[in-house]
């Protein structure tokens, strides 16, 4: 039990580390590149498509392999999302997220991975993003 708990914590830290490396190496912590991808009618920068492609191929094959196991190594079961309905919060949330993403060129992963560069914009973006995340629950009740 203690072993499982330790394994779970270390694997979360290491997975996060690999994830952050991926963000920085792929160029996604560069907001110019991300806005360049979203700028379809300007100087379009396809970099983000290569990142998504690389991630999707590895995750598609890797998930198939690990989900064959009866349980994860350090947990009693797989926690897969069970919701399948395409509801209003999904549409509204995705639209709001897309607009915010376009305004700055940051989505949550790259913003967190970019914290160490110490830019004022990043240091301001992350706490306002957290405020937005915390507001989502009360606002979801109104939709």
């Amino acid at each position, binding site marked *: 039990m203690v072993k499982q708990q330790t394994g779970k914590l270390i*694997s*979360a*830290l290491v*997975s*996060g580390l690999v*994830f952050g*490396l*991926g*963000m*920085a190496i*792929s*160029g996604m912590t*560069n*907001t110019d590149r991300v806005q360049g991808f*979203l*700028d*379809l009618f300007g100087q379009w920068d396809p*970099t983000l498509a290569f*990142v998504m492609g*690389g*991630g*999707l191929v*590895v*995750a598609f094959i*890797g*998930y198939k392999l*690990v989900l064959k196991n009866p349980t994860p*190594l350090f*947990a009693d*079961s*797989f*926690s897969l999302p069970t919701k399948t309905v395409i509801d209003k*919060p*999904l549409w509204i*949330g*995705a*639209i*709001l*997220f*897309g*607009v*915010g*993403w*376009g*305004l*700055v*060129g940051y*989505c*949550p992963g790259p*913003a*967190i991975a970019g914290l*160490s560069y110490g830019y004022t*914009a990043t240091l301001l973006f992350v706490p*306002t*993003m957290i405020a*937005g*995340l*915390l507001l*989502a629950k009360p606002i*979801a009740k109104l939709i």
Partner: protein
Amino acid sequence: MHHFVLAVIGGGLLGVAAVMMMGLNGRIAGVSGILSGSMTQPSGDRLWRILFIVGVVLGGAIPALISADFKPPEPQAGTMLVIAGGLLVGLGTGLGSGCTSGHGICGMSRLSLRSIVATGTFMAAGFVCVYVLRHVLLNNV
């Protein structure tokens, strides 16, 4: 190395991280969900989320320490845009249950219809937003 090659390698690492989280902990590697849960879940279920986020910060820092080429330029957006963008990204990913990692990589690779709809929608909204920002308002905001 050409940045398209680095993009595929970096993207592959995002996939590796997603597969590790699933195979080891049985969890989706979605940053918005993990970040939100690190503050709102019962205390016993917070530490792994906090450690994942710490890992993302450290992983993001390492390449720039090895080569200055990996340090990106400062974001262009001004203060008001950053605040608006941060709030919208937080609120939107909270309401929509995921972001580019959770829906875009983890969900789409599981062929989840919700994730495919969400990813198509936030990309379309991002295209429209940058079009308006750069070609209608001409970056005068």
